[in-house]
């Protein structure tokens, strides 16, 4: 098939200087000259003693400094030259299959399409990164981080957006990779060292983007077998790798993006549309990608958007399915707490500055009861509204001598596991909506929901709403 002129115009040109700025910039930059100037005063100045009587560098010292800096200068130049030195191209007989000149015949690929898909994908990745970092920071707060207890729905929204965006960007990512696929087989595969670095950074970007999406999907499907590592930390550190590689990629490609999106470039694509011609137009590709994202969103978002629940036939959760019409993430049996939780000798141990309380369920029931409506939000992206009844955590904190600064460590009856304990920071600990709940939907808590009592606080991830409470330790700060 013969390439259309449009294809030639839009095909990414590997020899364009501004697609490869790093090597070019290195060549022109002369940092060592600056160092030389600052280190060696002008030659006509005579050496002067400073007020402390120290001798200024003598001319021979200056000369040796200059020689040294010139040596460094030369070495840097040689390195830059080596980096930019063209590598011998591989023999042409290897230029076959996808490496062939006419291997990719689709006329739909264009820099404009790639840039548009890339912009949307970049935005989606940034949304995922920010919401993902937020979720991480709430669970492992760095010293500067502060997270409020209101609005109660905030984490529900940010984490829902995180997972929904992650799913919706799958079609975008695949289309973007398809649009630049011929560049994978660019000839020669490596022009010089700078080109190799650029290609390596693109490989890191592609691999880390696919990694994030794949592990995210496996996680919401709770299928941990194919992941030979702990999902949470892998997804977290790889997110930094992906966002870093994305920033580098945008930095390198910025001129191409600007040019291909500027109106001055004629868009030869035309608007034939999907319906009227056999060939897909750029807009048809974008429409197809948007449709795929829309279908995926509609089919799954019902796990957190209640009015979509019946439409979302592929949602990993349905908010109304579970014991007491609420989903469960960890069962009492899996947590190994059944015997301790159902023991008649169960006591909630509350420790604070003024002493320790050992409360039975009857003791808790005798305290002032409060009924609150709070959603439970899982890090996996599902959430569901629920009505909880129990004792205010703030009341318990006051009883054991905690003040307004007090934060509380909630520990579960579980003897192991990453999420057996959580810290309730001051904003949540003193929020009147935060309860040690004994009832859900006006019934005693089901064993899988944390019987005999559990923590429920506004605007916190589900893994921090500690179930099967064993103790509360209050510390004034």
């Amino acid at each position, binding site marked *: 098939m013969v390439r259309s002129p449009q294809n030639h115009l839009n095909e990414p040109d590997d020899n364009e200087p501004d697609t490869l700025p*790093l090597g070019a910039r290195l060549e022109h930059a002369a940092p060592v000259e600056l160092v030389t100037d600052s280190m060696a005063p002008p030659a006509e100045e005579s050496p002067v003693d400073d007020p402390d009587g120290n001798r200024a560098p003598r001319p021979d010292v200056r000369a040796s400094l200059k020689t040294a800096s010139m040596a460094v200068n030369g070495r840097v130049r040689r390195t830059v030259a080596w980096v930019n030195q063209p590598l011998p191209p591989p023999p042409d007989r290897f230029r076959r299959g996808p490496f062939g000149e006419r291997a990719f015949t689709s006329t739909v690929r264009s820099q404009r399409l790639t840039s548009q898909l890339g912009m949307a994908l970049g935005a989606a990745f940034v949304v995922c990164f920010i919401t993902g970092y937020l979720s991480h920071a709430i669970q492992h707060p760095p010293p500067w981080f502060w997270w409020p207890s209101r609005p109660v729905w905030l984490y529900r929204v940010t984490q829902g957006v995180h997972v929904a965006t992650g799913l919706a960007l799958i079609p975008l990512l*695949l289309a973007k*990779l*398809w649009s630049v696929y011929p560049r994978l087989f660019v000839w020669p595969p490596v022009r010089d060292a700078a080109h190799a670095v650029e290609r390596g950074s693109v*490989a890191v970007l*592609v*691999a880390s983007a*696919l*990694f994030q999406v*794949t592990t995210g*999907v496996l996680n*919401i*499907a*709770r*299928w941990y*077998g194919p992941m*030979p*590592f702990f999902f*949470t*930390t*892998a997804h977290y*550190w790889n997110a*930094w790798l992906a*966002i*870093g*590689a*994305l*920033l*580098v*990629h*945008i*930095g390198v490609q*910025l001129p191409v993006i600007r040019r291909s999106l500027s109106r001055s470039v004629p868009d030869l694509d035309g608007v034939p*549309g*999907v*319906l*009227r*011609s*056999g*060939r*897909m137009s750029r807009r*048809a590709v974008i*429409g*197809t990608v948007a449709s*795929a994202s829309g*279908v*995926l969103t509609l*089919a*799954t978002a019902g796990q957190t958007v209640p009015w979509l629940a019946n439409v979302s*036939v*592929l949602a*990993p*959760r*349905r908010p109304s*399915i579970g014991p007491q019409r609420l*989903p469960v*993430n960890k*069962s009492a049996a*899996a947590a190994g707490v059944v015997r301790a939780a159902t023991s008649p000798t169960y006591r909630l141990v509350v420790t604070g500055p003024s002493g320790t309380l050992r409360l039975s369920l009857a003791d808790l029931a005798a305290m002032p009861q409060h009924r609150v409506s709070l959603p439970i939000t899982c890090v996996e992206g599902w959430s569901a509204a629920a009505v909880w009844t129990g004792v205010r955590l703030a009341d318990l904190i006051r009883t054991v001598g905690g003040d307004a600064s007090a934060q509380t460590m909630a520990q579960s009856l579980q003897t192991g596991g990453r999420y057996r304990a959580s810290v309730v920071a001051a904003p949540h600990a003193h929020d009147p909506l935060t309860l040690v709940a004994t009832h859900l939907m006006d019934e005693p808590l089901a064993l*899988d929901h944390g019987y005999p009592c559990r923590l429920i606080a506004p605007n916190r991830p589900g893994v921090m709403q500690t179930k099967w409470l064993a103790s509360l330790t209050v510390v004034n700060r």
Partner: protein
Amino acid sequence: MRRALVAFGVVAMVYAIVGGLTDSDVSLVKQGAFLVAVLVAHDAILLPIAIGIGAVISQFAPVRHRGILRAALIVSAIVTASVLPLVLGRGRRPDIPSALPLDYPRGLLIVLGAIWGVVVALIGWQELRRQRQAIAFRRRSTREHPH
């Protein structure tokens, strides 16, 4: 601007690597292997298959409907691939029936049915319009050139 983007990007990547090296939960070897695996699976297997299928469609599908068939096939393939872990249901545990509570193979069939229902409706509408246009054209030409 560009230098700042590249610099921030490199800092983030270095942070990721240092973080991965110092976090005892991370196995760099296994994570690295998975990174390579997804890259190879996509670049060497999935995408070539998708492009191949696209090429076959271009050969055999009628030109009039090629675009929409291709679009529907792309959407179907992407949606199927994205929800495959749910459909396989390997993450189900007997002690948590509320996790993955739906019949996902059935759900996928419903979604695919909806996509292809739209395709059939669009093609039907397109054909109907074509036929009407053809009839109108014939009538006009008979009026203008009576035998």
